[in-house]
């Protein structure tokens, strides 16, 4: 499976489908430690992304064209902090993806660009219970996979797996950034909604490349075992 413009378009659609499927779960996560709008906002944003990507006036020639459309649409339509954060992630990813097809190192560059964008915009460091705790491990895993000679799709798969693990591990962290930081210790025991949606979006990139029937996806909607964090006993 080639990571080309058609893949990038499918990634946008798969992301929208995954976010829509997980919308209520994301709302619940954000209700626990944020202001409860993450699932709603992101769902609205990705529905707008699909409409834009599928619009007749779109004639993308490079992967970057699609990613830039995703970026500006998310910025315009999400509302709340996740719009600028995801928007900048896709914008910086676009800046290094001016290619018709991505090889393994281009996938790494795309993911590094996204992480750089999130960090530049949100100023969060690893371990602060944010999106960075999904994208950081994803980039590390992607670098290792590419260095080991993995294919472009295998690099994506490694990144998505690491993001999923990273998102789950945010449950045990204390939030120090964003609205969840007002809760301090009480944010422990709840997964960060931004990290959770990041893992979904990276899994969507894999699904767009290999099809959702892939054996690498344990759960067809979220790409990982559903866990409902209601207590802190997993910390």
């Amino acid at each position: 499976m080639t990571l080309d413009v058609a893949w990038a378009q499918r990634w946008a659609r798969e992301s929208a489908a995954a976010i829509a499927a997980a919308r209520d779960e994301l709302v619940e996560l954000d209700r626990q430690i944020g202001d409860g709008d993450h699932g709603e906002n992101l769902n609205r944003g990705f529905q707008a992304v699909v409409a834009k990507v599928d619009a007749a006036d779109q004639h993308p020639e490079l992967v970057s064209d699609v990613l830039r459309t995703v970026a500006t649409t998310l910025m315009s339509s999400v509302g709340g902090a996740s719009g600028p954060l995801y928007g900048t992630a896709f914008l910086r990813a676009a800046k290094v993806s001016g290619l018709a097809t991505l090889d393994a190192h281009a996938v790494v560059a795309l993911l590094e660009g996204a992480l750089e964008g999130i960090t530049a915009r949100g100023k969060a460091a690893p371990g602060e219970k944010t999106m960075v705790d999904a994208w950081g491990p994803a980039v590390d895993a992607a670098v290792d996979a590419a260095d080991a000679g993995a294919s472009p799709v295998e690099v994506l798969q490694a990144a998505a797996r690491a993001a999923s693990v990273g998102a789950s591990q945010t449950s045990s962290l204390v939030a120090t950034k964003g609205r969840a930081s007002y809760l301090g210790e009480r944010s422990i025991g709840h997964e960060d909604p931004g990290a959770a949606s990041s893992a979904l979006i990276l899994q969507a990139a894999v699904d767009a490349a290999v099809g959702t029937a892939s054996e690498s996806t344990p759960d067809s909607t979220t790409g990982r075992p559903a866990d409902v964090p209601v207590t802190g006993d997993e910390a």
Partner: protein
Amino acid sequence: MSARVALVLVSHSRQLAEGVAELAAQMAPGVQIVAAGGTDTGGLGTSYDRVLEAVSTGLAAAGGVVVLADLGSAILTVDSVLEVLDEGPGSVVLADAPFVEGAVAAAVTAHGGGTVAEVLDSAEHAGTTFAVREPRPPHSPVDDAGDLSQRTVVVRNPLGLHARPAAVLARLIAGLDAAVTINGANGASVLEIMKLGATGGQGLVLSATGPAAEEALDAVATAIEGGFGEV
């Protein structure tokens, strides 16, 4: 078209942005001040598209734009707009400044023909202008040498040097070829003048240096003695 720097005010609240724009415009009627508050539907939040439109409007009318934003995602949204716009360095900047004080200070400096860097600097120093802090010798432009001219005037209007008269004086002084201080405060800064808290009947010491020092003192003294239309 004005060559003055334009301001864009970004708040989660449409009314807050419009209110601060109104306040700043009273001090600087010749500056383009664009409010970009609230979401597209008028709710609380920030809109990428409204901010983009406001910055584009400001850029079309002025040589540069200084943006002020209130909180969290407003700042993220402005940063995102600036990254996507990718204008040349220095033509659009986001001030790290308190929203109200920064907007007022920036507007007055822009009105006086300040550059983007000068307007930005005014906004970013506005927060400390009202703060209680250890007194330090104020940096007075008058310190920068030249012969010093001085004069004493009495405040005539009962309300003293409140916002509107302070803005009138700052605009007047910014347009003169002289550096003027009022009781040691920088006469070109509306916030410095307001901070004096000068009340009706109070005497003030005006000091000036520069080519037009004497004319500057005449003009400032005349304005203060004239009572700003409030007597």
